């Protein structure tokens, strides 16, 4: 079986079999991050495909400073952040377009809370409220168990930024989740 550098060399010269093998090799790592960021579904699948396509189109520039997995995760996280930002914008537009009064919205939210009885779904809804860049840090540090250094490499930001984002995100989550823990 060819080594990863050999597969990369073959794929960059247009070898489809090598490309496919690299996709199989790293699908799990990419799927894990992308589905955690976006939830499973069409958006996640689309970001997964685009991650590999961008990676392979950038192969001539890939110098191997970081591992393939780190590089792929960086692309995947950045693409996921873009999708989350677009979702937020769309949601804001929908909210602007709504003609309901504050009371109606509050009543609807209350009904929504009652419907969302599953604790994990409620926690995810609260995590969804985070800024996409903060959410990426939470996923890499808490879920993927990455070190601050690895997270900074994957996100392409300094370690200090990772730490401050994590601190702010966790403070916000603690404020929002404390009532859930108290009720449980």
């Amino acid at each position, binding site marked *: 079986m060819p080594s990863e550098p050999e597969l990369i060399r073959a794929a960059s010269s247009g070898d489809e079999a090598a490309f496919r093998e690299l996709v199989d090799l790293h699908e799990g790592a990419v799927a894990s991050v992308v589905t955690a960021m976006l939830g499973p579904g069409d958006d996640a699948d689309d970001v997964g495909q685009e991650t590999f396509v961008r990676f392979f189109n950038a192969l001539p520039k890939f110098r191997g400073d970081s591992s393939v997995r780190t590089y792929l995760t960086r692309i995947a996280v950045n693409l996921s952040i873009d999708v989350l930002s677009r979702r937020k914008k769309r949601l804001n537009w929908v909210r602007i377009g709504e003609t309901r009064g504050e009371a109606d919205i509050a009543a609807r939210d209350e009904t929504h809370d009652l419907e969302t009885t599953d604790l994990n779904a409620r926690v995810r809804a609260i*995590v969804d409220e985070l800024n996409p860049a903060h959410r990426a840090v939470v996923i890499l540090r808490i879920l993927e168990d990455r070190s601050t250094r690895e997270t900074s490499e994957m996100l392409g930001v300094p370690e200090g930024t990772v730490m401050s984002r994590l601190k702010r995100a966790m403070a916000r989550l603690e404020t929002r989740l404390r009532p859930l823990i108290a009720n449980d």
Partner: protein
Amino acid sequence: MTDDIDRLVRDALAENRRDSFALGFADRTVARWHSTRNQPSIGALIAGRFARLTPLAAAAVIALAFYNVRSNESTSTVDRLLGLTPVTVESAYYIGLGSAKGR
């Protein structure tokens, strides 16, 4: 408390996480790769369009330069080549008067 929050968040996110995409992911990715490889970039498309205009633009520049050099024989070659009109004290004074009248 923070450990509780970490655990809560980890459990909730882990429930949504998948270790693979839907079946046939590699096929879809390869197909997408092929479609992007056959598609020229926007930069290449624009460059291609402008490349076609290059001979025409070059011919127009040469024709204009030739016309300028032939038509004004009283000034220097560079001035004639660039189509610059000679500036004398009178013309400068006239321009100054013109702009003053305009105000």
